[in-house]
């Protein structure tokens, strides 16, 4: 019976000990604006369009899951508001006209900042 009383109390103090032990370890949080997390080269951030390589085969438009992020007619436009950064277009583009950049800060005030348009002659 004694054990059934002192055991829980021992466990309570063990709980305190664990939190104390954790307080000595170093902090894990990252001060975001000052120190940024370094992304590796495979990170799927903003997609970049290179006009020279593009042969306008419209494959990227067909492969993109959200159906109308990339529009190719007179202009080549990518709508970053709708893009889900899945990397399908970059993977299936025959001429590597689209590359992935590790840039993930896409916040902007108005929506049409997010639409990237490039003149296609």
């Amino acid at each position, binding site marked *: 019976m004694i054990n059934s009383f002192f055991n829980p109390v021992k466990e*309570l103090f063990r*709980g*305190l000990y*664990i*939190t*104390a032990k*954790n*307080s000595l*370890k*170093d*902090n*894990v*949080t990252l*001060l975001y604006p000052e120190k940024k997390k370094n992304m590796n080269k495979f990170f799927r951030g903003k997609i970049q369009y290179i006009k020279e390589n593009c042969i306008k085969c419209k494959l990227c438009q067909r492969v993109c899951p959200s159906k109308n992020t990339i529009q190719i007619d007179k202009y080549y436009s990518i709508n970053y508001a709708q893009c889900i950064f899945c990397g399908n277009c970059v993977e299936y583009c025959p001429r590597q006209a689209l590359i992935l950049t590790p840039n993930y800060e896409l916040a902007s005030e108005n929506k049409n900042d997010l639409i990237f348009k490039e003149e296609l002659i």
Partner: protein
Amino acid sequence: MYLFQEILLKYNFSDWFIFIAGLVFYFILITIFIIITVLILVLFERKYLAMFTRRIGPNRTGIRGCLQTIADSFKLLFKENIKPANAEQFLYFISPLIVFIPVILLWLIIPFTSESANYQSQISSFLFLAVLSIPVFGVLTAGCSSMSKYSILGGIRSCIQIISSEIPVSLVLVSVVIFTGTLDLNNIINFQSGIFLNWNIFPNILGFVIFFICSLIMMNRTPFDFPESESELVAGYHCEYSGMKFAMLFLAEYALTFVICTYMTALFMGGYNSPVGFYLADLFNLNNGFDYILKNIEQLFWISIKTFLLIMLIMWIRASYPRFRFDKTLELCWYILIPLAVFNLCVEIFIKYLRGIL
């Protein structure tokens, strides 16, 4: 307060005016002191909890986040007071005051230094307990008047909880009072003067543990924070309040924590006497009126250090335990704490008798 009254005497106002001005001045002084301590306490809690979970805590405002609570309180002050449509206007408006004013009165009772101008009364320890149960009404009316199911549940829970924790607290208080012989807080503290060995905590260790658990329940701190348990009742009794009224409720909760901790130090850990028996101020023995103030400051220092130790323990508990179940707490209070308190009472009487013989 007395200094202020002496200054007023020079300008020969009528004496009843001096008496009231003194009281008002002391009242304002205490509220400023409360607001400062609460600001420090809130910031300290967030930093202290952050330390436990390997975070940094608020560090954007001020040098390392020191102006955080000031920024919070300004935000709350200027926030729009949204009143729920079908809430009863008068009760909804009055209940934060019912919660906040008694907390300030509690501060008047506690003797911070030997010559502090607190309300000297023969039964100040019992008076503290009496005033302590007034905020319960505020919480209940706040909960029930804001007409939302969550706050009703929160209000009812907190009032049941505080009633069931008052009884063990008063029993333990009786045991301390028997041991020290007086009801007056000042005399209790003087009884414990000298080396820290003759603090009340050592002969009365069981009483201290019961008092500590019941004060956790009274302060609504984890593991007993039922009225505003986030995961169930969203925000409990103060979930319909915003702006200034919420600031008052929030302030009252932290002020209540600090006051109950000072009360515990006064009862068990020798309020303002220094643990080593003599005061640093006596060493300088400068005989003009200056050493009198130095001694007071040092006493204030000692009582706040001890309270801070207790508060750190309470926040440490908050970081590491889940919440109790509501009916288990009542079971704990009625089946375990009250019999223990009665047993502790008998132990105290026996020790008192033994001390009487030797």
